[in-house]
């Protein structure tokens, strides 16, 4: 499913970015690392043939959501955070350890899963073009689509209400 070189390169960028997010001291650095991560992710989507999703990943996620994050970070003017609570706390060590354990289990699970492939044979690769996605969106998945817009409406109203100083 794609060039190995492209895959490994984008994967490396992805992981580096993600690690950067959780390890960064300054909040702004963290957000910027996340932007890089999202770009790499978008590249991977394109590699997989999902071009529509790849584009809106950059447009919506990196472009809108992370910008929002950036605004809030700058608004709150937070101090650089200590790196993973260097001062102590079992939580960081426990968290890392358990995270690694979890990863290990996950890999096992994946291997076992793939060894027993799904029953349905894969069909011909369908390109994830805008037209194709749009067609599905407005026919089979029309209801979720409308509900999602309702969700967005609720989100907006919630945010406005919460952020007001006086109701």
């Amino acid at each position, binding site marked *: 499913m794609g060039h190995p070189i492209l*895959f490994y390169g984008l994967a490396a960028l992805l992981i580096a970015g993600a690690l950067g997010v959780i390890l960064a001291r300054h909040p702004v650095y963290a957000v910027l690392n996340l932007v890089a991560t999202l770009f790499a992710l978008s590249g991977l*989507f394109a590699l*997989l043939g999902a071009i529509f999703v790849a584009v809106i990943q950059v447009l919506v996620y990196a472009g*809108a959501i992370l910008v929002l994050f950036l605004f*809030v970070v700058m608004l709150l003017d937070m101090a650089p955070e200590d790196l993973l609570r260097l001062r102590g706390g079992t939580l960081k060590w426990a968290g*890392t350890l358990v995270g690694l354990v979890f990863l290990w289990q996950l890999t096992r699970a994946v291997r076992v899963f793939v060894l027993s492939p799904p029953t349905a044979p894969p069909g011909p690769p369908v390109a994830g073009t805008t037209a194709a996605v749009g067609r599905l*969106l407005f026919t089979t998945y029309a209801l*979720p689509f409308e509900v999602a817009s309702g969700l967005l409406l609720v*989100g907006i109203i*919630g945010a406005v209400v919460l952020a007001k100083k006086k109701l």
Partner: protein
Amino acid sequence: MITLTHYLLLSGILFTIGLVGVITRRNVIMILLSLEILLNSANLAFVAFSRALGNLTGQLMVFFVMIVAAAEVTVGLAIAVVLVRQAGKTNADELRGLKW
């Protein structure tokens, strides 16, 4: 050959990184940020499966996940702002209202 497995493993690694971030970061905003990584790892898994099964539903799921993420980030950040404004703290350790 890059198979489905590679993508799934990658997704798993991303997920773990996100989880560790959620558990270990002290700042509330950073926790929310790590949450985004989690969501994105799920998106990767969806798209990989969509390609492997030849079914576009996975990509549609990504679409919806993104919408939800947007809404969640909006409200979450609004709450964080209000919290910081009122309690004056951004440290997750100090927000211990659920303690016995």
